[in-house]
């Protein structure tokens, strides 16, 4: 079942002429017990897919906001096993919403890549986005993930050449994550016109849906991006909100909702 959850969701969105809203939070930020309520709240606010960060001590492709989120999660006791347990708990009441785990390779190597993929399948994970594993470095993780029907989502960047885009387009499944800016998560510049023309170009090489992340902060950003992309990925602005509420974590689910709802409405109004 799990193998088709992302594709089913993307197909359903396409059929209703809507675009995917994909929020990202760091699992366990700031404490493990916040994560599952926050996930449910984001679904209620209109999230189509959830990207859940597996905290890593040295997230060098992320900006300072997401790094602090990861540091809080680790300090709060979150482990890779804990991330998988959170997904299992979420699945007890939500069997529909696809979940993508996003993170770095070393914790997966520590658990064992095959054992990790088994655990993903058991807990109801649908896809993996491993930031520091480009297609060239495919190893036992890729094989194990494919065998268990887990989608592997790869990144493309403005600097990605057409030749690499073909490789990435063939490797990626579920969707392609287009990094809209040169830079790290949480960078401030976003040029929606440039993103639009780039997406048109990428569609020559990529058949799966293209979702765009990095730099989407407002409902207007989300709507503008999803007028050409198949989805908007929203991360840093949510992690910043979590950071603002670390002393009052009970308020986090509602606060995330109030960021995502206007995005959902703006995206649907545009559709």
């Amino acid at each position, binding site marked *: 079942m799990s193998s088709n959850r992302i594709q089913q969701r993307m197909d359903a969105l396409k059929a209703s002429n809507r675009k995917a809203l994909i929020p990202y939070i760091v699992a366990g930020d700031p404490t493990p017990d916040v994560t599952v309520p926050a996930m449910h709240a984001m679904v209620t606010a209109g999230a189509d897919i959830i990207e859940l960060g597996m905290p890593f001590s*040295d997230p060098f492709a992320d900006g300072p906001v997401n790094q602090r989120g990861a540091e809080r999660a680790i300090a709060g006791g979150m482990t890779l096993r804990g991330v998988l347990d959170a997904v299992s708990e979420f699945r007890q009441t939500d069997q529909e919403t696809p979940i993508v785990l996003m993170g770095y390779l*070393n914790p997966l190597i520590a658990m064992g890549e095959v054992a990790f993929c088994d655990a993903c399948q058991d807990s109801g994970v649908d896809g993996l986005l491993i930031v520091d594993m480009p297609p060239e470095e495919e190893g036992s993780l890729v094989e194990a993930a494919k065998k268990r029907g887990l989608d592997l989502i790869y990144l493309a960047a403005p600097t990605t050449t057409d030749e690499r885009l073909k490789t990435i387009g063939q490797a990626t499944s579920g969707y392609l994550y287009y990094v809209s800016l040169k830079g*790290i998560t949480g960078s401030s510049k976003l040029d929606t016109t440039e993103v639009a023309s780039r997406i048109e170009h990428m569609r020559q090489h990529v058949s799966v849906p293209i979702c765009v992340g990095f730099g989407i902060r407002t409902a207007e950003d989300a709507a503008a991006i999803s007028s050409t992309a198949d989805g908007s990925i929203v991360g840093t602005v949510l992690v910043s909100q979590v950071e603002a509420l670390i002393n009052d974590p009970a308020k986090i689910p509602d606060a995330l909702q109030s960021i995502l709802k206007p995005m959902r409405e703006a995206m649907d109004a545009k559709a």
Partner: protein
Amino acid sequence: MALTEQELRTLDYEPDAGGHFGDYGGRYVSETLMAALSELDQNYQKLKNDPDFQREFDADLASFVGRPSPLYHAERWSKAIGGAQIYFKREDLNHTGAHKVNNTIGQALLAKYSGKPRVIAETGAGQHGVASATVAARLGLECVVYMGADDVERQSPNVYRMKLLGAKVVPVESGSRTLKDALNEAMRDWVTNVDDTFYIIGTVAGPAPYPQLVRDFNAVVGREVKWQSKELFGQYPDALVACVGGGSNAIGLFYPFLKDTEVAIYGVEAAGRGLSTNEHAAPLCSGRPGVLHGAKTYLMDNSDGQIAHTHSVSAGLDYPGVGPEHAYLKDIGRANYVGATDDEALAAFHEVSQVEGIIPALETSHALAYTKKLAATMRPDQTVVCNMSGRGDKDIFTVAKMEGISLT
């Protein structure tokens, strides 16, 4: 898996097209860095055989660094130990006081030939930062150096040197506030400013092609030792010893000797308060393979795969990973990796200062501590070359403080 001596003599010791040394190395980075690394790789593969580039590099090593650095017979120390004859490869006599400048000159020239007006660097002890700031000043390049906030405190003289040279020093407050965090921050800068910026990485770690090109720029050390040893004692040394943090001074000495299997090779890691404690920085001695900072290599992490906080008395060795080529040399059995503790390094620091009139860097003192042990097991007609990778002027405040002496 260990190879036979015959295999070790005939290996070419070059990475594959993807930058892999056996299972190690590679390019484990975000897509946002891929184009920059490919561009760097293409530029480097083209320039490394370019006569103009090589001529300029060699001329700078001669006139700006002062190469060749001497191979010095530490006679009194050899006699006091009573074993093998010990020779120091005097990288401490280089301009800026360490081997680091060999690499920064090479990379700054790459930046120049690639048309990048801005260079960035990460630094631990500050030696690489100073070496980067130095060549940036000479070539008229803008220079930003990232340094862990703890290291900024530990190494304040070097921070001031970098500022004198016109560089901007950015203290990094995230994570453990040491070298690995400075590296994270430098990578972030590079991803964001890749169009006009060249990242001068300070060691043989990081994604391909860095481990290869940093090695190649430092290999001048081993090449000189080859002819100097023939000239001084008629043959290659019986053993080479160098300290290993990221491992650039070590690979620079080792690389030209890899096929000469009659030469034993020892890399000395920082054993901190002891390898049986968690307070050390010795991934090859007691870590395991994983992925950090863009390469697969041995590293120190906890059971959950989070990178460990390391400890060493020397800031330059205080790093949880190691260059992937060292990981490979360990596995195939070409090099031996051992540890020296803080206390052993400090003892060697004092001993060599007093017996040979050379104050070594604390990083280098780890290599010296093992050299002493090794030489004691060898005959007086045998030879050990220890890479005197840096001088200890920068460390006198640290040592004085540890010994309760106030210098102000």
